[in-house]
């Protein structure tokens, strides 16, 4: 990255530092509690009192081990799930107060990149990107074509417009999904595990795209991931989730130098530590000897 670009990025992030302005806050989560209903009707607590803020123009990373509810958090921000306790505000609107119509109006301003891409399998790449535009606008066909090709050009896949999703590699599918997510020029894009299963080149392309699109389109990005180094390289602010709570937060540098053993265990990828390797169970020896008189 050139020094000018770095300065621009730093100044942009500085303008949006947490605590600067309430109006600058795009997502505000307070005292979030959420439980999943298990197979046998039992409830598994996923979040217990999570607080989180996302400021406009930032790339905010939400890191954490698998199963900590990172994807669920994105679904809560998108209003696809409702919290048991606490409040979620997006662009100043409390999601719990919104009816379906209001929620859909809000979602028009939010793009989401699903882990699987979630492309419509019976439509070509072009039709997939055109889908939200056709659904929400009355633009003439010529304009839709230009718009879709601009978005596909931005992710480097203009030449693949006539392919079906089944003909795309995993990385290409995610880039098409990204083009679709930005088709309506949203204020915020939610990325669900964008780097999972990507080869180094595809990963590099996605990292560059997320950062560049955030800057050029003046987006706000929330990236959920467990790929530590890749995510820290593009994030302005990081939240680290584990065991239902935020165990660390700060700029990437602050996170790298955090003293918390739980944060360090995750960053270094250590299999055992404060976050245990073993799923809770009764004592192994007792269980093995349980059947012996």
């Amino acid at each position, binding site marked *: 990255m050139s020094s000018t670009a770095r300065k621009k990025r730093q100044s942009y992030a500085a303008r949006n530092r947490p605590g600067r302005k309430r109006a600058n806050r795009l997502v505000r989560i307070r005292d979030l509690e959420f439980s999943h209903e298990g197979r046998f009707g039992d409830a598994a607590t996923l979040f217990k009192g999570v607080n989180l803020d996302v400021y406009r123009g930032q790339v905010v990373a939400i890191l954490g081990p698998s199963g900590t509810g990172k994807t669920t958090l994105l679904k809560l921000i*998108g209003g*696809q799930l409702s919290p048991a306790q606490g409040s979620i505000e997006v662009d100043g609107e409390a999601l719990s107060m919104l009816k379906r119509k209001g929620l*859909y*109006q809000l*979602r*028009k301003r*939010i*793009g*989401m990149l*699903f*882990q*699987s891409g*979630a*492309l*419509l*399998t019976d439509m070509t790449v072009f039709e997939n990107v055109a*889908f*939200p535009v056709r*659904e*929400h606008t009355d633009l003439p066909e010529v304009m839709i074509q230009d718009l879709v090709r601009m978005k596909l050009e931005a992710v480097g896949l203009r030449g693949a417009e006539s392919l079906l999703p089944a003909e795309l590699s995993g990385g290409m599918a995610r880039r098409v999904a990204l083009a*679709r997510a930005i088709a309506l020029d949203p204020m915020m894009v*939610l990325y669900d595990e964008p780097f999972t299963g990507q080869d180094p080149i595809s990963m590099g392309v996605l990292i560059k795209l997320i950062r560049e699109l955030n800057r050029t389109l003046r987006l706000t990005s929330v990236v959920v991931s467990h790929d530590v180094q890749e995510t820290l390289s593009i994030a302005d602010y990081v939240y680290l989730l584990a065991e239902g709570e935020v165990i660390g937060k700060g700029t990437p540098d602050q996170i790298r130098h955090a003293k918390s053993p739980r944060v360090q265990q995750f960053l270094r990828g250590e299999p055992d530590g404060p976050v245990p390797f073993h799923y809770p169970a009764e004592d192994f020896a007792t269980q093995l000897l349980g059947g012996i008189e």
Partner: protein
Amino acid sequence: MISLLHHWLLQLFSIFRRLGRGQLFLIHLLGGVGVILLRFRLVIQQLYAIGVHSLLIVIVAGLFVGMVLGLQGYNTLVDFGAEESLGVLVALSLVRELGPVVAALLYAGRAGSALTAEIGLMKATEQLSGMEMMAVDPVHRIITPRFLAGFLSLPLLTAIFTVLGVFGGYFVAVPLLGVDDGAFWSQMQARVDFYDDIQSGVIKSVVFGFVVTWIALFEGYDATPTSEGVSRSTTRTVVHASLAVLGLDFILTALMFGA
């Protein structure tokens, strides 16, 4: 004993909960009918996928059912010297009962299972969630056109099944068994009533189209988003839709022809 009772109560509660979800789903999808009728192209696409792709099985089944009816009917009627009434027997059997019921069972097996699998897989691959996040209601955009197409397709498929069944019966009766051509058609024309017979068949096929398509779409939408979940839902569609058709057929027949 108490745990068994508790288990049964939970099962009962689960059934009522599913029934409730099914009703809410129906209300939700019917809420999109007005919008989708203005975008009728979406319904036409599904009419092709659901109706046209079911044509082959309906045509072949209709022909063979009519031929079997012709053979069996002839063997019975010839003992009474009434083989010239074979046209009436074939036509009434098909128009009143076999046409609507067999076409609906074939539709549940062919198109119903396909609808459940398609919707279930769309759910499993997050396509429906993706639409929700694009502020597009997946029930209105995906389910309602399929519902309308299924609802329109089954009466048409039933009509095709019945007509081909009559021709199958004719083919066996007249050229093969030597029943008089004029008697076959004239007795049929005299005894098959438009209001009593044809209209009742049409009403049945409309009701079956509504119920089978509703069950198929709900099972897909309510499927557990895993390969096993989609497979179980697809099986449930065929079983529940078939039982619903047979049960409703009895109720409708009792209402229209009973007492």
